[in-house]
């Protein structure tokens, strides 16, 4: 099963290279990603039913991986759907030539493959290879438009992320070095084994390894101050790719940090690594704030908001109580769903207005009677207002912070979130309200895109008032991954 | 029950009857100090009769507010008359009214009078209303505070209760607090009755008038009602001054003798206050409108000192 999951995107990628026709490519990728969703979900179901999926020495899927795996598959599917309309419009506008379309689908599927590889690999080394793979797969997607800005973004993206990730590799090597003496060559990077023997490892080396891994993978997650590539890449990529980057790639990178964290905390105790994660989390929220307050580009605003939300997840993981972890992964789900949906919406809007500058987008309520309210809903959700999903997880995280007696951190975060809310609302109200510029024609931007957006918004609203039983169960299982190792 | 009603009715009658006379007396006294002959003390009665004989002229711009104001003003004063203890500690409505209500009934009357001042659309009326409301606003706390001091001492805002508590020599009678409160209220009375140095009741000069400005459009029977109402208000405020702070002589039991004494003492007190008021009026010049707050602030501070001394010095 996991092999099929890994093979599918590769197959679709290679199939994509054989065609140039837009419709054929679309059909292939939709059918393909639908199959991927089914496969991924069936694996997840198997995992959540209680049996871990293991294949050989290198593949291991537990609840944590399964959760993010499902997110990748689902959002991948939504992105594929959305890409159809989005790319068709871009083609019509002559943003790129049709023969490059196959490369889009090729890299998109490679990207999905690498993310899957991150999640299913049982080996920290392979995980590193896969994380670096995600960078390589997306670098050309970020620069897909071949414009000055997008190339610049792609360049910064690949350089900064590669540098960052090299540190992660160094961390991995240090861990390997620490482990070889205990476990011997073969199991030395298998994180399950490592977790088991963690207490015998050299704590000094572990500390060093974690610092390097945190800085390295943290770069990929977009934790400040290593986040600098993120607003550039997320704002310059085609919107469906931005959705994918913000929605799931960050989570995959975060997953890598968690794996290290789990190993290291076994040996060094909980405080060391979780406090570092917490620190970076708070720092990320702090750094995101001013950029959101004075932001001029809507996609950059969303990117900074992603930094903020990764910070919140980091804080929650750093807090580390059961409730906090529950909140962290609920937040991960919520953020993935909401942010990807927002990038869809903004994609439509920026195509319609032919700009991403907030100041030039006005009167959305009038011009786009569905996208305007949708942007408002998504924006409010991402800013943490009820009755939308992110409010729920933020509330859980804050309350767990208070419950642990970490008043200062929790209050600080509550205040930061509030201030960020004002920044987001300021930008949103600039866009949705007011009188639209006369150059913009009234009406929606294609029915298909509207439908995709509306579908993607459904969980945003539903999860805001109601957490279904199965999600509750899943989150319980994911949190137990953290606790499980210590027993 | 019947007896109390009778006393209440008597007090109302007395006040309505005495009101124009007091105005006359004050005018006469002022004339005396200004070495004029001055009008007859009964001149206000003649004026009222004259107004009633004249046709009422109403501006075409006015609304029904203008028409009903004299009635509302006058009947508010009547209601207050029925509340205030005059010659006896009891009054017709004492059981169901208190001094806060009295002050707000004055406010009701003033509210409509000020609206009526605006109603005709002339600048004089508007000016009068504007100044009246401004002066009344800053006079209000100064007016209330001394009364509150007395009410707190008596433990009730009911006038009968306050008067009784003072008569029976309750807590803090004739103390520093008591006297200071009286002084404070006396200053406010000057403002409330529209007298120099706050207002000049005898002028119709646009720069100086406050109260008269609002009455400018009225004539005939409407003017009669309002003039009488204003006179009654003056008597009522003097009565408050007299009976709250110096109630001695007031009838506490229902006997003819006590009532007679009460009536005589009351008239005497009114005369004294009226004459003092006239003296004050002649010895001061009218201040500028924007100096009035200083005066009232002074009054408020005296009242505050009274209140503080009540608690700090226990007397």
């Amino acid at each position, binding site marked *: 099963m996991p092999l099929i999951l890994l093979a599918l995107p590769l197959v679709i990628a290679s199939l994509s290279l054989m065609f140039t026709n837009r419709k054929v490519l679309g059909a292939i990728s939709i059918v393909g990603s639908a199959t991927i969703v089914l496969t991924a979900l069936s694996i997840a179901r198997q995992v959540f039913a209680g049996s871990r999926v293991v294949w050989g020495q290198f593949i291991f899927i537990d609840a944590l991986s399964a959760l993010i795996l499902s997110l990748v598959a689902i959002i991948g599917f939504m992105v594929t759907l959305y890409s159809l309309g989005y790319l068709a419009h871009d083609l019509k506008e002559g943003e790129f030539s049709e023969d490059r379309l196959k490369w889009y689908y090729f890299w998109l599927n490679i990207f999905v493959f690498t993310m899957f590889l991150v999640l299913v690999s049982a080996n920290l080394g392979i995980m590193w290879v896969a994380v670096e793979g995600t960078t390589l797969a997306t670098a050309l997607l970020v620069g897909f438009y071949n414009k*000055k800005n997008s190339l610049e973004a792609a360049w910064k993206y690949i350089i900064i992320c590669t540098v960052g990730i090299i540190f992660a590799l160094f961390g991995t090597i240090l861990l*390997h070095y620490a482990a070889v003496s205990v476990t011997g060559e073969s199991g030395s990077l298998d994180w399950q084994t490592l977790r088991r023997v963690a207490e015998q490892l050299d704590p000094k080396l572990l500390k060093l390894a974690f610092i390097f891994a945190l800085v390295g993978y943290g770069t990929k997650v977009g934790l400040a101050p290593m986040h600098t590539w993120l607003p550039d890449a997320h704002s310059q990529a085609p919107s469906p790719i931005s959705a994918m980057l913000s929605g799931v790639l960050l989570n995959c990178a975060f997953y890598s940090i968690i794996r290290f964290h789990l190993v290291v905390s076994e040996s060094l105790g909980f405080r060391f690594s979780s406090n570092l994660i917490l620190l970076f989390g708070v720092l990320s929220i702090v750094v995101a704030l001013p950029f959101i307050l004075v*932001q001029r580009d809507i996609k950059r605003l969303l990117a900074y908001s992603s930094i903020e939300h990764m910070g919140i997840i980091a804080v929650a993981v750093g807090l580390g109580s059961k409730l906090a972890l529950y909140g962290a992964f609920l937040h991960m789900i919520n953020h993935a769903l909401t942010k990807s949906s927002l990038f869809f919406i903004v994609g439509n809007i920026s195509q319609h207005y032919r700009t991403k500058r907030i100041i030039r987008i006005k009167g959305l309520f009038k011009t786009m009677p569905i996208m305007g309210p949708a942007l408002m809903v998504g924006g409010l959700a991402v800013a943490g207002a009820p009755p939308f999903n992110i409010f729920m997880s933020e509330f859980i995280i804050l309350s767990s912070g208070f419950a642990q007696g970490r008043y200062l951190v929790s209050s600080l975060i509550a205040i930061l979130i509030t201030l960020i809310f004002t920044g987001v609302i300021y930008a949103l109200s600039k866009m949705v309200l007011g009188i639209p510029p006369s150059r913009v024609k009234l009406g929606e931007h294609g029915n298909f895109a509207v439908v995709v957006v509306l579908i993607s918004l459904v969980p945003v609203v539903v999860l805001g008032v109601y957490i279904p039983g199965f999600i509750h169960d899943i989150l319980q299982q994911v949190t137990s991954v953290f606790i499980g190792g210590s027993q | 029950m019947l007896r109390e009603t009778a006393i209440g009715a008597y007090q109302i009658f007395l006040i309505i009857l005495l009101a124009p006379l007091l105005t006359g007396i004050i005018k006469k006294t002022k004339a005396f100090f200004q070495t004029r002959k001055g009008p007859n003390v009964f001149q206000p009665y003649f004026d009222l009769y004259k107004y009633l004989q004249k046709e009422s002229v109403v501006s075409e711009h006015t609304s029904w507010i203008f028409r009903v104001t004299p009635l509302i003003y006058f009947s508010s004063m009547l209601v207050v008359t029925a509340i205030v203890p005059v010659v006896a500690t009891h009054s017709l409505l004492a059981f169901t009214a208190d001094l806060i209500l009295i002050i707000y009934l004055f406010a009701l009357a003033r509210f409509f009078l000020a609206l009526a001042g605006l109603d005709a659309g002339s600048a004089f009326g508007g000016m009068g209303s504007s100044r009246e409301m401004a002066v009344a606003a800053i006079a209000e706390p100064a007016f209330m505070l001394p009364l509150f001091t007395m009410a707190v001492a008596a433990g009730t805002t009911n006038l009968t209760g306050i008067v009784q508590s003072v008569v029976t020599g309750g807590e803090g009678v004739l103390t520093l607090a008591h006297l200071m409160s009286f002084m404070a209220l006396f200053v406010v009375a000057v403002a409330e009755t529209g007298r120099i140095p706050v207002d000049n009741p005898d002028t119709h000069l646009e720069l100086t008038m406050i109260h008269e400005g609002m009455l400018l459009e009225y004539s005939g029977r409407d003017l009669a009602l309002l003039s009488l109402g204003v006179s009654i208000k003056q008597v009522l405020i003097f009565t408050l001054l007299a009976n709250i702070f110096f109630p001695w002589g007031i009838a506490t039991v229902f006997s003819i003798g006590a009532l007679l004494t009460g009536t005589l003492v009351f008239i005497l007190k009114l005369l004294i206050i009226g004459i003092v008021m006239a003296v004050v009026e002649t010895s001061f010049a009218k201040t500028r409108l924007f100096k009035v707050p200083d005066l009232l602030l002074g009054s408020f501070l005296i009242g505050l000192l009274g209140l503080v001394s009540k608690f700090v010095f226990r007397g």
Partner: protein
Amino acid sequence: MQNYQGLVNFLITLILAATFIIIMARRFNSIIMAVIIQGLLLAALSTALGWATGIHEMYIAALLTLTVKAGIIPIVLINAVNKVAINREIESFLSMKMTLLIAACLVFISYLATGQVIGKGSGLINEALPVAISLILIGLFLMINLKFPIMQIVGLVVMENGIFLAGIGTTIGMPLVIELGIFMDILVGVLIMGVLVFRINRSFNTIDTKNLRNLRG
């Protein structure tokens, strides 16, 4: 193992020396030559270690190093240089003296830092780890200090070499699968960077990083 200690240490020192050549060089061709030399030295080190320890995978690693780091990557770099920046001076933020000083400091720091982690006389790692960290730090420093995108690729390659050195120096290499993956990543990464350099050059008509500063805030 002990017999080869001297050789290995010598090779490691040479690798560090090659890095300094890269720092000091002011022409692209010499830089690329230094990169190739470093690749060769790494391959040699790998072979020596394989010979010394008898682990055959080290030979494969050596071969890979030879082809990728001394072969393909330099070719890509040369290609890129020829296309976009032939015969150009390399500009840096700091002067040569400062650059050297800082690089020396970084080496010093690396020895200092690793001294705390590993005890004295723990063999191979004693020499390899500090040099590896030096390479990583100097690579990063190169990327920060030099103004041309191609030099950033070079810096990255130096960092990567440091990592490789750390890998083989500490634990005689990672498992082969991982090693292969890493090589592939490096290869693809450099290729993609090359592609991007071409495209940037085409769009901007120049490849100066001064122009790559449109995205702010």
